[in-house]
């Protein structure tokens, strides 16, 4: 009962957050990648430095003030400026660093996704039926945790290298939503049926609640891998118009001259 309440609450929060992000405000002058600042006559060298595209210091990436912009467009502006920072551009344009980090991200898939899936298969009673669940969990957990940490670090770097495009990617958003749901699933599993694991650890086919959690986990992680792979493709990108209105709405895209 408690877990159902938790699920519906989290679902509502998720929907709310998404629509908070997709509010585009009323008068939008779409600051895309590279906000264009016009230099006034007689400006000092300092303002010229601030206005230059590539040399925005990390500390100046504040949320833009003024103008009636929704959260979504503020974030678009924020990630646009993040992408213009020297480190981000450097990572994006480097010959090997980006490919290298991406390889690590893919390779760690085996460590994290592979082992998590093995545990799910055991919970479903589809593999290793005579290995005690508690023992398998105890032995696999350090590896999956390590894998997850590497995944988050390498994934954040990949996002940091191409922030605006990733933020506006529909696949990235699907991936993040599923990631949150998967996290919630773990929370429910560990605070619920797993508390009594000693009573069913030896069962070839664990109780229903555990099997349901495993099924959710399996489906969500598979979805995360699939949508993660699809981020690489630009079918629904903002700079490829025309797109269906719903796609532009869901990705905070204001088609008219939005940067790039």
């Amino acid at each position: 009962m408690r877990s159902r309440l938790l699920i519906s609450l989290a679902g509502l929060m998720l929907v709310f957050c998404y629509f908070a992000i997709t509010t585009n405000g009323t008068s939008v002058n779409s600051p895309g990648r590279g906000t264009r600042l016009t230099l006034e006559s007689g400006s000092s060298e300092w303002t010229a430095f601030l206005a230059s595209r590539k040399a925005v210091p990390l500390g100046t990436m504040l949320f833009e003030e003024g103008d009636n912009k929704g959260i979504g467009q503020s974030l678009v502006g924020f990630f646009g400026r993040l992408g213009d920072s020297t480190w981000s551009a450097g990572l994006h344009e480097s010959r090997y660093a980006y490919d290298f980090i991406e390889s690590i991200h893919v390779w760690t898939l085996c460590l994290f996704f592979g082992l998590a899936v093995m545990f799910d298969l055991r919970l479903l009673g589809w593999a290793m039926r005579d290995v005690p669940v508690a023992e398998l969990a105890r032995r696999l957990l350090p590896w999956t945790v390590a894998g997850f940490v590497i995944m988050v670090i390498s994934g954040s770097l990949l996002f940091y290298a191409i922030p605006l495009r990733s933020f506006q990617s529909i696949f990235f958003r699907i991936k993040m939503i599923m990631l949150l749901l998967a996290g919630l699933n773990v929370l429910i599993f560990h605070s619920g049926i797993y508390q009594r694991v000693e009573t069913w650890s030896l069962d070839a086919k664990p109780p229903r609640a555990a099997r349901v959690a495993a099924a959710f986990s399996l489906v969500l992680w598979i979805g995360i891998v699939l949508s993660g792979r699809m981020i690489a493709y630009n079918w629904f990108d903002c700079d490829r118009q025309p797109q269906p209105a719903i796609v532009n709405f869901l990705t905070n895209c204001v088609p008219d001259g939005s940067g790039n």
Partner: protein
Amino acid sequence: MSLLALFHWFEQTAIGNTIRQSHWLFPVIEAVHLLGLGFVGGEVLLVDLGLLGLGMGRKSVAQLSKDVGPWLIGSLAVMFATGIPLFLSESIKCYYSFAFWVKMGALFSVILFTFTVQRRVIRMPTARPWQFRFTALVSLILWSAVGWGGRWIGFS
């Protein structure tokens, strides 16, 4: 017929043409291929970490590898079923890709190694710890080469 001519022929097959002409076939097949990688990785790591004595108890490795066996074969079948069409759609590119040949070499060695040497060592009642560790290391290094090779085909 030279090898290059053979690869030209591969590229002209109906499957290769269909995939090349579609916008979404290649990405979808590739995504499933990636999923297969995750599954294979999990199964291989489970057994190899056990053999290294990191994680799984060594006694249970024989049982573990028997349990995981069908899943490994199933995942490999998915890898081949998706990998071959991907290859057919860009065989000329693969022919000139160093990463592709590294991957193929590592792939066939590791499959051979897993189903002959490693399987025999695991089931040997008198195997020494160093034999376990050795087969696990060889398997991990070769599988890593397969994974990296595969990723780097795409970067060229």
